[in-house]
Every structure is written in C-alpha cells, then in structure tokens.
C-alpha cells in the first residue's frame, strides 16, 4: 500500500510533465490544425539552451533557465509559427505533419552534432531531499516540486483560457475562426499566443524533466510519443483531456515499471493508445469532432 502511494506520486510527477507537452499539442491542433510531431524535441531542446547559457556563456543557473525559456518562446514559438507553419498551413494538414517530423529530426541531429551525443547532467533548483509524508511513505522533494510546478503551470493556463477575455477569444478562434474574424477578434494574434504557450510549456517541461532523465538529444523520441498518446487518450480536442491523458500515462507507466517489468514501461502509452482508438476514438474526455458543413 505504501509502495503504491509512493509510485502514485512519482507517476503523477512524470505524468504532469507529459501533460505539459500534451496540452501544447492539443492547443496547436485546435487553433491551427498543426499536429506537431516535433513536440518531443520541443521538450528536449530548451534544456540545451540552458546548458549553452550556463556552460558556454557562463551565466548563473537561474539566468540560464530564463534564457532557455526566452529562446524557446522565440525559436519554438514565433519562428516555428512563421517559418514552418505559416507558409505550409494553407497546403493542408499532411505537408505540415511531414515538415514537423523533419523539424524533429533536424533538432535532434543538430543537438547531437553541435552539442554532444552524450547525456548531460542537468542541474535542478529543487532540493534533493526526501520527506516522509506518512509513516512508510517517503518521496523526494524534487518529485513534489515537479508536481507543484507543473500543476501551477496548468492551473495558470486554465485560468487564462477560461477566466480571461483573451482566453475566450482564443477559444472562439479555435471554434470558429471565420466568425471570430468578422467580429473583430485578432485571430492571427490569438494563433501566435497558442504557439507561445506551447513553447513556454515545453520549456517548463524540459527544465523539470532534464534533471531526472538527464539532457540527451534522443529524449524527444519517447516524450513526443507519450505527448501524442496522452493527447489522443484524453481527447485530442480538449485541454482537460491532455491533462488527464498525461497524468494517466505517467501513473500507469510507473506502476507497470514496478509491478510488471521495466521492459514493458514504454509499451504503456502505446497499449493505451490502441485501446482508446479501438473503444473510444474521441478520447476519454473528448467530443466527437464537429465539422462545419
């Protein structure tokens, strides 16, 4: 029982990171029909921005993290929007999908060639201590910290989307861009916001996950897959779905690693993906896609 609780907390912590990646995924799909297969690399890269700032430029950790977030917003947000998605979007979903796959490969190989193929130790701001929550239940403060930061980011995003006028305009843009534009909603800016949010969430996820798994060029492979699976499992057209999907996969893969075999860990998101597609294709919380006639 105490084992289970410990595993649950560890699972929620990784799950929350998956959720961050998955949310961005669904946001991009909703506002600009972009399925970003480079999403995993988007989570891998910001850690290297921070490493460059720290090691090459010799900046302190906290400044480096800020630089990493800023660089992510510019490159993975603005540049991605205007250089990759902008020109390709009017050519349909498929060319864009292929391009994001290419972008993922470029990012991965660039990090490997220009930085290092070795896994890099990544510093953390979170204390490296264990606390006892209940008798027999010990978890690391770092895990709690990850969970708290990720949930804070998610909470902030939910407030933004559901509690502000800008958020409502983003929802309107996602639901009916034509009418939103006629009403005078600055649709283009709303779309850019989703790209910035996606990049920001990816940077946060990167900073949270790299101390745990080390920063490595190939980290994106699993992360991208998990984010994709989490988005599908939860329901591709809902932010809430991505959160649930991410947490669920995090918990299940921790449990599978402990009770079944670590060898099957990677199979969890895929098995879940297959089951959901077979039995509930709109996702656990998703709605069936409504298409205008």
């Amino acid at each position, binding site marked *: 029982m105490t084992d289970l609780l410990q595993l649950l907390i560890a699972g929620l912590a990784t799950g929350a990171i998956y959720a961050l990646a998955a949310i961005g995924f669904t946001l991009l799909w909703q506002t600009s029909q972009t399925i970003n297969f480079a999403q995993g690399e988007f989570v891998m890269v910001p850690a290297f921005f921070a490493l460059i700032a720290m090691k090459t430029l010799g900046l302190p950790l906290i400044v480096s993290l800020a630089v990493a977030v800023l660089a992510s917003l510019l490159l993975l947000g603005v540049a991605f929007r205007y250089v990759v998605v902008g020109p390709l979007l009017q050519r349909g979903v498929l060319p864009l999908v292929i391009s994001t796959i290419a972008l993922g490969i470029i990012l991965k190989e660039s990090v490997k060639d220009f930085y290092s193929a070795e896994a890099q130790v990544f510093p953390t701001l979170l204390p490296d201590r264990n606390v006892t929550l209940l008798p027999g239940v010990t978890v690391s403060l770092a895990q709690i910290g990850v969970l708290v930061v990720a949930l804070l980011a998610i909470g902030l995003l939910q407030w933004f989307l559901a509690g502000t006028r800008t958020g409502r305009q983003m929802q309107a843009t996602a639901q009916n861009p034509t009418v939103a534009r006629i*009403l005078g909603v600055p649709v283009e800016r709303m779309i850019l916001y989703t790209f910035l949010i996606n990049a920001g969430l990816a940077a946060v996820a990167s900073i949270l996950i790299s101390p745990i798994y080390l920063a490595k060029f190939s980290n994106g492979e699993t992360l991208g897959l998990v984010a994709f699976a989490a988005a599908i499992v939860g329901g591709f057209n809902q932010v809430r779905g991505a959160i649930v999907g991410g947490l669920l996969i995090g918990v299940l893969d921790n449990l599978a690693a402990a009770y079944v075999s670590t060898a099957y860990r990677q199979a969890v998101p895929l098995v879940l993906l297959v089951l959901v597609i077979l039995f509930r294709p709109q996702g656990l919380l998703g709605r069936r896609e409504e298409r205008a006639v």
Partner: protein
Amino acid sequence: MTARLEVRALSKAFGGVQAVREVSFDVHEGEILGVIGPNGSGKSTLFNCILGQLAPTRGTVAVDGREVTGLRPSQLNRLGVSRTFQLLQVFPRLTARENLILAGQEHRGSRLGRLFGPRDAGLGAEADRMLDFFRLGTLAHETAGNLSYGQQKLLDAAMAFMSGSRLVLLDEPAGGVNPTMLAGLRERLAAINREARATFVVIEHNMEFVMALCTRLIVLAEGRIIAEGTPVEVRADPAVIEAYLGH
C-alpha cells in the same frame, strides 16, 4: 434624410458569370427590407458584397452616408453593421451568454484589460437583456452547441443585435427552423424593430415569413432587381410570378 444603407449600381462578376448586375436600393432607419428571388439569383453574393466578404466588381455601398465599399467585415462590424449566416455560426463550446459578450465587441480595449479586466467586459447586463428579449434567459449558461437548432438561430440573431447594431443583415433566418419557433423568431424580430428602431435586410426563401415580417421587398432574378414594393404589390407583380414559376 440619409439612408441607413445605400447601395448604388453594385455589380459582381465571377469570371464570365455576372452574379449581381447594377443593383441599387436604399434602406431607411427602422425599415425591414426583404430580398427575395429564386435560387442562384444573386442574393447571397449581394449580401457578401455589402458586408465586405467579397469585393464588388463595380458600384458603391454607403452606411449612414459614409462610403464603406471595400471595408473588411470586422471594420463594418465596428461601424455597427452585423450579419447572421445562412448556416449557423455560433461558437458551439461557449455558453449562450459568452457568445453574446463576444459578439458585443469585447475585444476592444487594452490588452491588459482583456487579461485582468472583468470577464464580461461590462457587457454582461446587455447580454442578459438580449437573452431575455430573445426568450433564451433560462439557457444563458448552456453551451451553444447544446441548444436546439431553432434556439441557435435565435442566439445568432441576438448576437447580431449586440452593442446597438445600426444595421443587421439576416441571411435566411428561417431556414430549417420549425414552424412554432419560426413564429417566435418573427415576432421577436418585429418587436426589436418596433422597440429599438432596428433596421434590417433579410434574405429569405420562406415567403410567408418574409411577407409577414418585411415592410418592403426587392426581388432579384439573374442578378437584377425585377420588382420592388410592398409585399402585396410584389406578390401581384407579373414579372415576379414569371421569375418564380419559370418559363
């Protein structure tokens, strides 16, 4: 008196096809003008040209004496010209009330206000009034996608009237609405016209609806105005009967 809407010699060609030819008419404040005509007679194209969704090939459009030809729909919206669509155009996953607030130009104002300002943007009271007026008060917090088709049509109309629109163009408001709901919609439109001196132009296929609602009609056939007058006059016009019954 300046007309609320003045359309002068408006033409629109798509390649070789002349969809609208030299159409001119005025709409005065408080008037309900019906635009009727057989399928393909150019009604929707005319609407789209007036509203800036299509650029007219020739001709001008003026609102309250100000020329607005070529303005974008969002700019016209800001001038108080709004429209409803033939196919429903509400935001399905926002509530009815949120739909109205969005239609009420909430996006104006500062960027910070949009983030931290009141979520109803000061339009809540007007939205509630509009919901009550269109008899949707009990459904204010229902997501629009869950409303019946007829209720969504009412919401769509209510959205067009938010923020004191000066001129509302209704594109087939009656299409697909059941007869009971239809009587309600007609009665509400007549009421808002009476009480708020709202001015509208209505495209509609449902003759009974148009005849009962509109004060004046123009009839289009092959992109040209072939008749104009009160519903009674138009109904008796031989050119109209000819256009509708064919050769």
